[in-house]
């Protein structure tokens, strides 16, 4: 019997669909994996920023505080401590200048990291902010 006019060959259609769907599923799995990797890297950076803020908050200048009641950081030491803490907790992370937020009185550090995307995303820059209460009290026992 001859094919009626307008009839389309259906052989191989399923194969095309299966290949297409496999591609879509592969892309979805890749995106989920990529998203998870980025979320994990960002969370690690956020914890590193917290540790950096905690480290910087140990470097309050006690003399300025005693004289004026103002919370001022000993800058080079605070900065160095923040950088070290961030780099230890999230390798490759770098932090901007630590400062005291005048509204909250907390020490704030903003840290940055990079992650290389596996798909077509290239390199992505991550940022996280850490906060800690300034620490001061006894420098020596009995104080």
């Amino acid at each position, binding site marked *: 019997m001859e094919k009626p006019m307008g009839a389309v060959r259906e052989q191989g259609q399923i194969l095309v669909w299966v290949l297409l769907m496999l591609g879509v599923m592969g892309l979805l799995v890749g995106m989920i994996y990529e998203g*998870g990797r980025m979320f*994990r890297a960002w969370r690690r950076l956020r914890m590193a920023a917290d540790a950096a803020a905690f480290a910087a908050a140990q470097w309050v200048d006690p003399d300025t505080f005693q004289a004026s009641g103002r919370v001022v950081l000993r800058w080079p030491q605070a900065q160095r401590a923040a950088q070290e*803490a961030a780099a230890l907790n999230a390798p490759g992370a770098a932090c901007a200048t630590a400062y005291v937020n005048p509204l909250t009185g907390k020490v704030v550090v903003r840290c940055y990291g990079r992650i290389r995307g596996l798909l077509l995303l290239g390199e992505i820059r991550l940022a996280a902010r850490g906060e800690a209460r300034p620490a001061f*009290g006894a420098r020596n026992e009995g104080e």
Partner: protein
Amino acid sequence: MGPLMRKRLRNRSGQALVELLLAFPLLVLMAAAVMAFGRIFHAGLQAEAAAHGAARFAAETLSAGRGVWQAQAAAQLALRAAGLDPGRARVWVQAARWGRGERVRAQVCLRVSVSDIPFARWIVPAGFVDQCATAYREIQRWKSQWEP
């Protein structure tokens, strides 16, 4: 090829069943992989959170014994809050010297079992994966040795 054979080959009833049988193992394997990956990923995140919590609490005291105890308690609390079994976790807390400004290191390793997920052993032959995380903190510089 005879006309009868040709007709049988063109008969498409049952084609869907054959396709389903071919696709089903792949789908099951993918589902198992997603479940196993999700569990391992969750455990990895929680191990990191537990390590950071442990380091944070260890840094709050000048007493080594108390620091280790606080760190272990914090890690176990974090894992329990995340719905994980702290009994499967190992926590190490150490510092070169326990004193003001010294660095304390906390490591949490969590054994994640995937053996109860069907076909997961095809992906993870051992049936478990260890997820470890490390965190560092400086011990408080302004802390008194006095403890309540």
